[in-house]
């Protein structure tokens, strides 16, 4: 296999004076990339020609007449582990203040090009989310601040440091308050550093602020259990999940972590015969709701009364104290029965940021005894620490000019704080304000100093996601710009001479090395770096007595909720999350898994309301002063509610994000100690404007076709082939005039378990990153020309009010009798002896006949030149943006057809590695990007000729079927029927 876990540390082991030289050379090499004419720079030492050659070379190949002089520029001194043309994988961790993942960073010739999950991590394993996958592109964001600024003018780090240190000293001497406002910090070493930094001042406050807040959970657990933590929800141990507005598979807390535990109980393989049952109450149609076995649309304001009734009914059944709450007209007897039947094996969870709701949730989980197993307070998720009230207090103090210095790190309150105007206004009055941000965003430029921070792929850090589960972040590329890590800045400003790297090492030496059984620290450190993760068993916090008082208070003050008017709800979307990465074109063009919409946010409205008000998808509706947004008729949306995604409507974030959609953060409210993501209005006004939305799927019914085959658990248990009867029928009908082709050696196949696939779309971005798939922009998506090689089809069935949803990943099916191959006149697509449907771009003349004749329509056409074309200025125009390109995959020219290749480059790479080692290719060695990124292991790839391989077993499963198998295209991709845990 690959040369995994090489550490950057070894870089620094170059002996003696060479080290400095290398350091210098390495840095300048990267910086030189931003010179306009690379050829003029004789001292560039990297074989980046593959990247830079794209423009020159492909044009030359096209015209076949110009021969540019190619330069082969070697290193002066070649770093030991860098072999030109070979990929290196560094273990690292991703944390953006919102989402965490332990990852491997694939670098080629010194530049990170792909993110993969770290299989050693118990938290996320090989799975990643779309946002983590896309984070590598953020590294090459042109919009990033390139050097420190004072006001709007550039300043050197030395000068900025001097001024800041002086200013801090002045303020400290005069007793002024110094406030550090950061996003949630989960790095234990950084926390220590902040504590030390704060200790240097007499009047210091550290506020953590989360754009999307989990403050209510923290608060409720503080009140009940005396622990200000977010518990880990162990869905893998639960039989029943009852969730209220918690999109835990999509964007709530740690989706990747939850998807793997959730789907581990939804699989029906290896003898597993039971599934967890998932009941979901929610207003908008979330990814999680669409995966639920039973989904009940509710108004958000009704959540509390339903929960209270649920509590009463369970308490009643268990003979516990019952509270006086208004009756709820919703029939929840079934839910009560199921929960009671799975005491201690169920999870009740709510995603609403309302302390009283979270208190009732805690109460129900307490009643059911879920804290023993499924709701883990001892290993809490260290993801969000921000308390809403603290931020409100800070705002008050800022406005009252009580704060003298404000240091911002990794936050963007000018965009995502509900009182952003007041905040911005208060900023100008502060004596010293420093902003530290990786991204270019709305807050940039508002402070006295801009001290840009490294991208996480350029920085050192650590993280402790749950107590005892540590991971390290290491730089995989030398900083591209003149930036500095946040921690280095703090160290400098507190007058400490050590670098953050040393500090981090020391911190580990002091705190974690003693816990390990290793003898030498260097070995421990290198080992941890190579693995990326390090686990220790720390002391468990003692649980104080459970306080029931607050619960009772919450249950006694239940209001019946709202019946009239409209309730508007904001949610972080699967693609953009809280909007921090909106300038990432991959994420911007990732269609929402349910709405199948990208490049815009909309107000999702229920079909009933839409009909009543005469609103169609695309009609602009007015939700208040200066608040107009296109409506989107969303089946499953609760009547009387509107859902709007957060993260859009940036005014200053870069060319991709700016002026796309509407920013709804300012409409959030601070109510009852929590930030409420939503508001109520009595009436929606429909305007005459209409907007064309960038939808990637416009027809939502399967039209009765056996595309996604499903069954219920009870039927499945009786007959594993239930719902898949057609498969046997079609198999028996298969006849052929021509003899079947025999595949000797490899016959690659992909199995997709529709039961495990939740539609998270990580594979889509992984594929995009791996295969250099261009971003085409809003207008092209509107024309239905999105380029994604893998797409997640979503179909609704049943009524528009309470639809059932299915997801189906669709990529090239690599049919053995491929209709596309027969019709290509120039032989640009044909079949390999390994069962791959091959596509050679350089032979393609673009007749599009194959596109037409593909029954699955998975082939994509390069309608324009998407690279080096100013009209498509997303990431494939600037030299920086193009650094993300995978040098092993051709960048396609205009006029050629492309499609999923099963990551042929990875197949070849793995086969070659096996050949070099003189061994057979083992099952699971080859992992296409989609398979590798899948957090739920829904995709399995392997050799179908090997009867022992996982994929062969999957194909032998009675649930297995092929898409449109009646056409006798003999796809190499198989699907396993979806089984729902419902009574039938």
């Amino acid at each position: 296999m690959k040369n995994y876990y090489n550490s950057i540390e070894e870089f620094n082991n170059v002996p003696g004076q060479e080290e400095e030289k290398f350091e210098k050379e390495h840095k300048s090499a990267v910086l030189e990339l931003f010179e306009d004419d690379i050829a003029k720079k004789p001292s560039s030492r990297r074989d980046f020609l593959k990247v830079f050659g794209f423009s020159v070379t492909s044009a030359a190949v096209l015209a076949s007449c110009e021969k540019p002089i190619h330069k082969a520029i070697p290193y002066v001194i070649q770093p030991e582990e860098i072999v030109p043309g070979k990929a290196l994988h560094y273990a690292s961790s991703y944390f953006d203040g919102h989402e965490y993942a332990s990852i491997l960073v694939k670098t080629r010739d010194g530049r990170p090009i792909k993110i993969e999950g770290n299989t050693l991590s118990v938290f996320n394993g090989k799975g990643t989310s779309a946002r983590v996958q896309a984070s590598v592109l953020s590294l090459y964001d042109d919009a990033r601040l390139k050097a420190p600024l004072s006001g709007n003018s550039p300043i050197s780090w030395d000068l900025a440091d001097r001024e800041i240190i002086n200013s801090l000293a002045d303020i400290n001497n005069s007793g002024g308050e110094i406030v550090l406002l950061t996003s949630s910090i989960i790095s234990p070493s950084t926390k220590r550093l902040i504590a030390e930094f704060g200790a240097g001042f007499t009047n210091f406050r550290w506020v953590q602020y989360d754009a999307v807040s989990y403050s209510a959970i923290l608060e409720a657990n503080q009140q009940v259990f005396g622990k200000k933590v977010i518990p880990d929800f162990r869905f893998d141990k639960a039989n029943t999940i009852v969730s209220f507005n918690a999109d835990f598979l999509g964007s709530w807390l740690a989706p990747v972590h939850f998807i793997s535990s959730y789907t581990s109980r939804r699989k029906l393989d290896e003898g597993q015969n039971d599934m967890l049952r998932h009941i979901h109450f929610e207003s908008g149609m979330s990814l999680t709701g669409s995966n639920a076995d039973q989904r009940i649309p509710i108004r958000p304001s009704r959540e509390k009364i339903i929960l209270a009734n649920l509590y009463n009914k369970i308490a009643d059944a268990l003979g516990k104290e019952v509270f006086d709450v208004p009756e709820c007209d919703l029939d929840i007897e079934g839910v009560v029965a199921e929960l009671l039947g799975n005491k201690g094996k169920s999870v009740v969870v709510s995603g609403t940021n309302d302390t009283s709701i979270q208190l009732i949730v805690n109460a129900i989980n307490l009643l059911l005894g879920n804290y023993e197993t499924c709701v883990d307070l001892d290993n809490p998720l260290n993801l969000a620490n921000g308390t809403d009230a603290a931020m409100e207090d800070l705002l008050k103090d800022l406005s009252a000019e009580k704060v003298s210095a404000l240091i911002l790190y990794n936050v963007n309150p000018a965009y995502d704080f509900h009182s952003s105007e007041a905040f911005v206004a208060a900023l100008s009055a502060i004596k010293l304000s420093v902003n530290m941000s990786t991204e270019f965003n709305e807050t940039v430029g508002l402070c006295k100093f801009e001290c840009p921070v490294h991208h996480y792929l350029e920085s050192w850090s650590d993280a402790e996601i749950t107590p005892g589960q540590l991971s390290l972040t290491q730089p995989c590329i030398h900083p591209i710009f003149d930036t500095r890590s946040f921690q280095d800045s703090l160290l400098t400003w507190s007058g400490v001479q050590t670098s953050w790297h040393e500090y981090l090492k020391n911190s580990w030496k002091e705190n974690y090395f003693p816990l390990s059984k290793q003898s030498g620290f260097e070995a421990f450190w290198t080992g941890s770096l190579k693995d990326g993760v390090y686990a220790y068993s720390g002391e468990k916090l003692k649980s104080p007595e459970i306080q029931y008082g607050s619960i009772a208070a919450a249950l006694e003050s239940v209001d019946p909720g709202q019946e009239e008017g409209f309730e508007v709800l904001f949610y972080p979307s699967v693609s953009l999350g809280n909007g921090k990465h909106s300038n990432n074109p991959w994420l911007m063009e990732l269609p929402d898994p349910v709405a199948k919409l990208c490049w815009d946010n909309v107000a999702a409205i229920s079909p009933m309301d839409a009909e009543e008000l005469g609103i169609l998808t695309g009609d602009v509706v007015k939700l208040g002063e200066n608040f107009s947004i296109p409506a989107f008729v969303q089946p499953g949306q609760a009547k009387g509610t509107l859902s709007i995604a957060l993260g859009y409507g940036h005014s200053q974030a870069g060319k991709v994000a700016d002026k796309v959609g509407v920013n709804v953060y300012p409409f959030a409210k601070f109510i009852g100690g929590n930030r409420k993501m939503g508001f109520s209005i009595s009436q929606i006004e429909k305007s005459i404007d209409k907007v064309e939305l960038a939808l990637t799927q416009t027809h939502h019914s399967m039209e009765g076709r056996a595309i996604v085959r499903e069954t219920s658990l009870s039927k499945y248990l009786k007959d594993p082939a239930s719902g898949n009867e057609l498969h046997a029928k079609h198999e028996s009908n298969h006849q052929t005039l021509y003899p079947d082709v025999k595949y000797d050696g490899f016959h690659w196949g992909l199995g997709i378990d529709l039961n495990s696939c939740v539609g998270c779309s990580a594979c889509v971005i992984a594929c995009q990153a791996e295969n250099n798939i261009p971003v085409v922009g809003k207008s092209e998506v509107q024309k239905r020309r999105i380029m994604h090689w893998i797409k997640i089809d979503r179909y609704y069935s049943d009524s528009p009010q309470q639809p059932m949803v299915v997801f189906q990943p669709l990529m090239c099916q690599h049919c053995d009798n491929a209709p596309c191959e027969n019709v290509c006149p120039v032989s640009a697509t044909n079949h390999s002896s390994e069962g791959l449907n091959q596509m050679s771009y350089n032979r393609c003349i673009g007749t599009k006949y194959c596109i037409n004749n593909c029954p699955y329509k998975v082939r994509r056409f390069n309608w324009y030149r998407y690279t080096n074309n100013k009209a498509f200025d997303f990431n494939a125009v600037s030299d920086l943006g193009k650094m993300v390109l995978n040098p092993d995959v051709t960048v396609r020219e205009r006029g050629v057809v492309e499609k999923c290749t099963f990551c042929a480059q990875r197949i070849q790479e793995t086969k070659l590695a096996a050949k070099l080692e003189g061994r057979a290719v083992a099952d699971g060695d080859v992992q296409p990007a989609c398979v590798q990124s899948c957090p739920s292991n829904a995709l399995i790839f392997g050799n179908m000729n090997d009867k022992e391989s996982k994929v062969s077993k999957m194909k032998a499963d009675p649930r297995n079927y092929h898409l449109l198998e009646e056409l006798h295209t003999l796809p190499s991709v198989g699907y396993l029927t979806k089984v729902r845990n419902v009574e039938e």
Partner: protein
Amino acid sequence: MYNRSIRGPLVEGNKTYGQISSDIMAPIDARPGMWWYLTMAIASVAALFGFYAIYITVSKGIGTWGLNNSVGWGWEIINFVWWIGIGHAGTAFSIFLLILRQRWRTSINRAAEAMTVVAVGCAALFPALHMGRVWLAFFIFPYPNTRGPLWVNFNSPLFWDFIAISAYLLISFSFWYMGMLPDFATIRDKTTSKVKKAVYGFFSMGWTGGSHQWIRFESLSFILGGIAAVLVVSVHSIVSTDFAVGVIPGWHTTLFPPYFVVGAIFSGFAMVMTMMVVVRKVYKLNDYITDNHMDAIARILTFISLIMGTAYATEVFMAWYSGNEYEMFTFFRNRVTGEYSVQFWGMVICNAIIPQLFWFRKIRKSTWGLLWISLAINLGMWFERFNIVVTSLANDFLPSNWVSYTPTIIEIGIYVGTIGLFVVGVLLFFRYIPMIAISEVKGVLNIGSKIDD
């Protein structure tokens, strides 16, 4: 054989051989009227617009068209098939009527063949333009190369199409040109202008009308005629395989080859009628292109229209009879009703119902009746191709891929451009080439006009 007592003489007005020559040569010698220049100007503007659209397509990419991930073929293929269909007129006239010994064809076949050449030329533009990388179009030739050599895919209907169209263009052109040799010689010998004498002398290739030449001329006509007869059937059959070989519902049907061939002849005859109605008026050639000629074409159209109607009915019936859910959907939910029902019913009305008006003698005799109905057929045939190409692709197997398709101004521009090009070609033909085969008309002068024949 031709029955005079039923249809009257083939050439009216008791012409002599000399008169025939001068009558037919008149437009070549005389300055064309104002209408000619005006039409030429309009057509040239249209053609220029087309060239601009082509320029945009080639320089920017196929993205300037309205196509998308599901609909890979749109107007360009519709127009391609439409033009190829129209291009069947000449050969169909010359060959089928030759085989059927319909001697009245003589006064029309030249114009019909000219139309064929221009129309096939227009048609040939589209397959080239619809390529994403038209500059690499030579990849389609199976020529020895340094890639191994890498040949082409002989299974691809598009390759069959490519050779069929090239062969058809070449053969229809040579057939047409060969027929003109004696006429060019006539002009060469009759004209007084030195320039014309030299030019037509060059193009007449030394034709004298000697028996040695006539005998070989007749032999070649026989060979080319026989070959072209096969081609008339094969070209559109092959064009139909572009669809019939596909797996897409609404495409995958064995009905297509005959259905396409008949449809092509239908549209070709209709276009001939459109042209002839105009020509005989403008050039006052009523004596050569007689009412009887128009009547004969109208009768044929009526008959073919019935076949077309049957074909449409058969298609729909087969969709139902097959019980295939995709076919059922394509026809009943997509074509008959649904987003593209206008095109479907337009097709049925224009092709199967309107031509039935030709049952009325009055309409067959009316210039306007002939003109409007022939135009309606041309429109209907365009709808037919739209139905086949777009509706099937827009809504095929997986509903997630369903899209709608709207052409852009660029696609429309190319279409308008080819119409302009066609008119320019036809006008030039009227101006510089004898529009009726002089020698052939002379050969049939006596038929039907003299009792003793």
